[in-house]
């Protein structure tokens, strides 16, 4: 690597999805210098809602009003589930810390309490989740009390239909009306794109014209729902202006991914880690990760001339298949960076059940890395692969986050717990 750039840090976080972002955030909060490697593309698919644990067990689809009660049941039934390895006080602290960081970065969330919330989706279904952005929060109350309510959509915005939501919910929510309006300035456009509408609403004039179009439609409505397009970087200002301009509570309804709330979340997390001094290596790939006694050497591709990062500890937050932490060939699943052993079904035939929609899910969705009590992935012999290598997030085995509705919870809680272990491990060693 002669001539390549070099940099060094206490901890290198590989991965920039929810778990990687949380790990970088918590590393910085613990005073560790951190380099984060990877692009945050996966967060674009997020809805902005932060699940903790919504369903347990998955085969009965049982929803829980209290995520902490669900966690207790999970710990009892599946003690190897990564979330079951984190105590509830740590989970509370992790979420408070994460949400506070987002709020400081311009994406405020409703105060967390011990309950899960019900949120209306763009399909007219109800989603159970834990952390709700402030811009969506009035919708939680509206869904509960079901007052006369107006849902507004924009002609050309294909991913959101107010009429469909009203049709789905109409028999259970009698005061629910829907209206379609023409988005100001795009009368000749055949198709609208959510992010562009969101940016357009950040100009006061477009905002005022939109509000003026909606106000005559209010009628008896005591709340108004919009697709989640009310601003992007200045979403808070746009939301407040709509509430003030219409005189009733205004709420956003999360749209299909990739959505504006996903973009907001990505931007807020990027801001949060950047202001904490995390050095980000965007759009690069790890070519080689090698360990020595004093630390790891990580060779990066994608930087002109290449770069080598030296780290005293490494956190793998590379995710499963879409994050490319795991890959599947005709025979088996592999871990992509180090070739760590992946806990998986014995043969490919056992990856999936015969029934695609089987309630209990598929074995391949519980595959991943096995870890010790200090969040260190294990080698083939069942020993930590390297004393200073940790793993967090969805690459961990024994969990099916999509069906459990625990994606954000898994990312945030495991990042918190693992980063405590990283800090403890580094306390005894010298800086490089």
């Amino acid at each position, binding site marked *: 690597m002669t001539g390549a750039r070099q940099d060094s840090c206490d901890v290198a976080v590989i991965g920039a999805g929810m778990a990687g972002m949380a790990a970088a955030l918590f590393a910085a909060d613990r005073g560790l210098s951190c380099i984060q490697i990877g692009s945050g593309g996966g967060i674009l698919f997020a809805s902005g809602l932060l699940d903790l644990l919504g369903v347990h067990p998955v085969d009965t689809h049982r929803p829980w009003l209290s995520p902490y009660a669900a966690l207790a049941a999970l710990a009892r039934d599946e003690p190897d589930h990564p979330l079951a390895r984190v105590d509830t006080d740590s989970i509370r602290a992790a979420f408070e810390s994460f949400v506070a960081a987002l709020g400081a970065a311009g994406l405020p969330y409703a105060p967390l309490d011990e309950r899960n919330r019900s949120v209306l989706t763009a399909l007219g279904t109800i989603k159970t989740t834990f952390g709700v952005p402030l811009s969506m929060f009035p919708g939680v109350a509206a869904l509960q009390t079901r007052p006369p309510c107006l849902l507004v959509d924009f002609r050309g915005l294909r991913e959101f239909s107010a009429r469909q939501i009203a049709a789905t919910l109409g028999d259970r929510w009698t005061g629910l009306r829907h209206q379609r309006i023409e988005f100001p300035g795009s009368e*000749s456009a055949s198709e609208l794109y959510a992010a562009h509408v969101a940016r357009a609403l950040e100009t006061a004039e477009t905002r005022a014209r939109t509000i003026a179009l909606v106000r005559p439609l209010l009628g008896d409505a005591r709340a108004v729902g919009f697709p989640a397009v009310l601003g992007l970087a200045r979403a808070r200002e746009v939301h407040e202006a709509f509430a003030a301009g219409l005189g009733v509570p205004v709420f956003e309804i999360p749209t299909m991914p990739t959505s504006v709330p996903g973009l907001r979340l990505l931007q807020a997390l990027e801001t949060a880690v950047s202001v904490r001094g995390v050095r980000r290596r965007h759009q690069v790939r790890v070519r080689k990760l090698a360990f020595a006694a004093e630390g790891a050497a990580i060779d990066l591709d994608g930087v002109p001339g290449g770069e080598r990062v030296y780290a005293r500890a490494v956190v793998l937050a590379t995710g499963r298949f879409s994050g490319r932490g795991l890959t599947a060939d005709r025979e088996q699943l592999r871990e992509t960076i180090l070739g760590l052993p992946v806990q998986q079904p014995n043969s490919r035939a056992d990856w999936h059940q015969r029934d695609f929609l089987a309630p209990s899910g598929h074995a391949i969705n519980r595959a991943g890395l096995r870890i010790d009590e200090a969040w260190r992935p294990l080698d083939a012999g069942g020993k930590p692969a390297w004393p200073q290598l940790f793993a967090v997030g969805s690459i961990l085995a024994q969990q099916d986050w999509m069906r459990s509705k625990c994606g954000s919870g898994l990312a945030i809680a495991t990042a918190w717990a693992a980063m405590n272990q990283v800090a403890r491990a580094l306390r005894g060693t010298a800086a490089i």
Partner: protein
Amino acid sequence: MSPAIFQTALYLSLALCALGLVWRVSAWFRLRIGPDAQALTLFERLAAVSRGTASALVSRSVFRVLAALVFDVLLQYRLFVQAKLRWFAHLLIVAGFTLLLLMHALAALLGDALFPGYQPTLAPYLFLRNLCGAMVFVGAALLLYARGRQQTDLAQTRRLSGAAFMALLGLVLASGFLLEAHKIASPQAFDRMAQQFAGTADSAALQALRALWASEFGVAFGDPNPAPDRLEQGRELHRNACASCHSVPSSAFVSYPLARVLGPASGLLDAGHAEIWLLYVHLFACFLGLASLPFTRFFHVLAGPLSLLVNSAAPERALPARSASPGSRAACRALALDACVRCGICDAHCSVAPLARYLGNPGLLPAHKLLATGALASGRLLRPDHENQALQAAEGAFLCTDCGRCTSVCPVGLDLEDLWQAGRGDLAAAGLPAPAQWVQARTAVAWADSLEAEAGPQSYSDLYAASAPLSADRSSFSRCVQCQTCTNVCPVVAHSMGSEHGVDLTPQKVMNLLRLGLRELTLGSRMVWDCASCYQCQEHCPESVRVADIMCELRALAVRRLGAVRPTREAA
């Protein structure tokens, strides 16, 4: 030589030179370069130039012009900054040639008037004339050497007329030196002069004079070591008859050694009347040079200084061709064509030179663009047999980034940026617009149809695997999950949201067409051509698809594929 032949040849070459000058100078008022020059009449242009000249000469800018005359014209400061060796060589040629012209060619007019008793055969003039000739010779050799060292893999803008003129200059120098050398060594010439100036002396004295000249003046009599008393006798006659016009020629450091070499053959040369034909060669080469001066690149000896002076008249740091009136601007551009010496310094600094090399199109380089601009203005570029040059010129003109380096390094201070801008306007008017313009004259579907009609529905994947590696390789876009992120962050899509002339496809749809194997449909798409290359799509793509890079590649591909099926020139 008979005076009649000499005078006829002189006046003929002077007349040709004058006609040529009129023709070349009139081009500064005739050639229309740039859309703003098209409507101007000859009178308007003459008036504009006269006004501009007058106002420059009666204002404070006359001091700038004087400074430019000293530093830029006489001392060649701009060339000194860019290329020290060429500056030295150029200065040698200019100084040597000018002095030869004044003191040698025009000796009858100037030499005697300035230096009473001037004779080219007296010291120090013997030495000085050789020195001037040697300066020109060494300077020309150095220039050729510098030119050779500058060789690139791209074609250089050379013209036969330039080389011919250089050969003519060599001929003048060589024949001059040979003539002088022969006259030193020639017994015949000695006898003729002795007859004329010492005809009354007795034959013994003449013999003594011969012996003196043979031993000290290099005349080839074949008796180099006569007795000392004879030399004294000869010296006396020499003092009376010869010394007022002749010094010992050994200070002619080129001709004298040459005379010693020619000596053994001088009898033969005398018999063949070498003195006469060497003189003919020398004079006719000079006359030919004089007559052909306006028709070769050496016209720059007039156009270059003039261009430097004109440009210096503009206010500090302002580019004259832009601040002047349209008439002056038009004249400046036409003058620039003549002032350019094709030194190639602009080519060496050109930002897109690597691109020129990659595309194999020297039309991107400034020196070539300047020629093409002239050829377009004269109408030559649009002739059917120049179709290739026209296409090359069009590609070159529109790939220029207007970085302005060529203008800043030009040793004759040409405002090349202005020339390029004007040339692009002319190309567009001639039906050779920028690719973005001709591509968008049809819809993407129409282009795909004509591609299919022309070439059949065959696959080009293999053909373009090397030149379009991204769009030929499925793995570069097959990861696309159509999540719309690229579209969401695209400022071009955002801008076209409220516009009737919006993009036809979104970036994600372009990727989808590639996934479907319909690359031909993307080539003429507005999205591909309106892409601002801001890289937002590529930065945000959750699947790391190189969206912006692919767009760029599709444009390059479109220029080649669509360019092959379109008429060479769209109707203007």
